[in-house]
């Protein structure tokens, strides 16, 4: 794995061989027939380094494990195997004060603006609770900090004493950002932060996030399925397929010259703005295989136009290709074509 330590600086977060399996509940007839429990493999050996103060985009289809990865990093899921290290310390299964200390540094923002805020608490209550549980401020300084945070995320004056249902979706996501920032974290995990918002509002929220990142030196994990958005915000991008990273590299390099056939297909599938470009064959054939039954060998071989015998047997590892890394046996020949 020494190829993963090519980056000069020490990573802030390093994820090694992370797997997450959920056991599906057996139906009564399955139990009687003695059929084994079905296992959903949401993550299958994710290796990823996150550098300090970078924005790392994580993209992939629905159901590929993006959100599971985000939730594992935030400590909401306990992975089945593998390790997540934050500044060199393992953070798997932290409890009590240690977990609180870790989560003070690594915060998360959620996808759904309608369920991610407690509907019975005003913005002030929500922020004050976070600030006082972590003793970020005391006494009157708490209210000053709340005003500061709301100013930071550009919520109008008087927003503090309103309830979530009085805000629009974009404003609620900014409240979510303020809540995460109230702990003055080092790293933010944004799980589909703007995918529930209108495009015009998306831009506002994303630009706010970028600005905050610049000003506060934050590390951001930006999980999304919108490729243009990810390209716009990320320094580096990781492409995830069936719970494993298939390609990771600098944003521009990856988008202009994808190495992995799946990345190529994903980019080709993004709708073009050029009307002349409209009638194209679908970039990907076939369905995403069920995470209940991951194919052997390269997980992408059943849909890959370049699949060869070797792909059906041997699982490719992430290895340096061009400016980044890709997990494909034929990355060089394919991307040269």
């Amino acid at each position, binding site marked *: 794995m020494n190829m993963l330590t090519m980056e000069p600086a020490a990573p802030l977060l390093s994820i090694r061989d992370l797997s997450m399996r959920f056991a599906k509940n057996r139906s009564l007839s399955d139990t009687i027939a003695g059929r084994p429990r079905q296992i959903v493999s949401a993550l299958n050996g994710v290796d990823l380094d996150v550098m300090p103060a970078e924005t790392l985009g994580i993209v992939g289809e629905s159901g590929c494990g993006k959100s599971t990865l985000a939730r594992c990093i935030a400590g909401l899921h306990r992975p089945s195997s593998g390790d997540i290290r934050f500044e060199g310390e393992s953070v798997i299964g932290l409890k009590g004060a240690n977990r*609180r200390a870790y*989560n003070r540094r690594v915060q*998360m923002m959620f*996808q759904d603006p309608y369920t*991610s805020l407690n*509907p019975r608490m005003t913005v002030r209550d929500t922020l004050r*609770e976070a600030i006082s549980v972590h003793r970020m401020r005391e006494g009157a300084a708490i209210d000053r900090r709340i005003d500061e945070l709301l100013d930071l995320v550009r919520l109008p004056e*008087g927003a503090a004493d309103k309830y979530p249902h009085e805000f629009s979706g974009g404003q609620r996501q900014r409240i*979510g950002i303020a809540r995460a920032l109230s702990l003055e974290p080092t790293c933010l995990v944004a799980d589909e932060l703007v995918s529930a918002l209108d495009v015009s509002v998306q831009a506002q929220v994303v630009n706010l996030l970028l600005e905050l990142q610049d000003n506060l030196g934050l590390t951001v994990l930006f999980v999304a399925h919108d490729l243009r958005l990810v390209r716009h915000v990320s320094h580096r991008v990781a492409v995830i397929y069936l719970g494993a990273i298939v390609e990771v590299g600098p944003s521009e390099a990856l988008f202009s010259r994808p190495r992995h056939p799946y990345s190529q297909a994903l980019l080709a599938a993004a709708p073009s703005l050029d009307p002349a470009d409209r009638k194209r064959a679908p970039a990907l054939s076939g369905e995403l295989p069920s995470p209940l039954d991951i194919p052997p060998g390269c997980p992408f071989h059943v849909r890959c136009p370049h699949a060869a015998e070797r792909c059906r047997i041997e699982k490719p590892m992430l290895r340096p290709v061009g400016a980044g890394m890709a997990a494909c046996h034929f990355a060089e020949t394919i991307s040269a074509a």
Partner: protein
Amino acid sequence: MSVVTQIQPHRPGRFRVFIGRAFSRPSFVIGFTIIVMSIALALFPQIFAPYDPLAFDMTAIQQAPSLAHPFGTDNFGRDVLSRVIWAYRVDMQMALFATIFALTIGVTVGAFVGYYGGIADTIFGRCVDAIITFPFLVLVIAIVAVLGPGLVNMYIAITIVNWVYYARLTRAEIMTQKANDYAAAGRVLGYSDRRIIFRHLLPNAMSPIIVYWMTDMALAILLGSSLGYLGLGAQPPAAEWGVLISEGRNFLLTAWWMSLMPGLAIVLTGLGFSLLGDALADLLRPKGR
């Protein structure tokens, strides 16, 4: 730096808004009035009752309703109106004590099993099934028979059976609320499970529980007076609606008012709780998001 102003623009408080909406609803107004009057009668029967509820008057036995005795008199010449009013004290007490402990225990247990799930939830599920298999009244009567008749034993018996219904409701509500991202956000913010359950999930889960509580108080009065009627709850000569109906049952043809008047009191109070519960169900329903 500018001075942070502490003055907030004036907005009507949430409570004021709620009260305003509540009193624009006829069902709330009627239910609320009935219950407030019932509570007043229960607290100060001596002010409202025209006669001593226990005083015999051998010169006025089984008199039909008249101006002197609006609800008539019973077979010992006691004033039925006064006895019905004094019975408010016992019956309103039953509405409260037969439900409040069940509510407290049920909500706490339901919140924990709903939040943690797993083996505790499975064991809880089996217990619930076991208790719910029995008809409610039969089980309560069996427990009272073991403990012996009397009000306190009746409260214990009802609580033993009734908490299950609150727990089941709370468990389901907590499980729904737990699936919301604000619960996950609470965990990511490093909050303790207790804080997440009691400060975040439960306040959002309480509305249906409060509504159920209102109707359950009506049921508790019915159940309590049924047991009183059967001689297992309040004991004569205490005035309690079930006991009063039971006393009058031998004289239904000659002195129908002895049973009818306490029966009407049960109906009226039950109606009050039901209307209030119904109105609260509408009022507490979360606003469209």
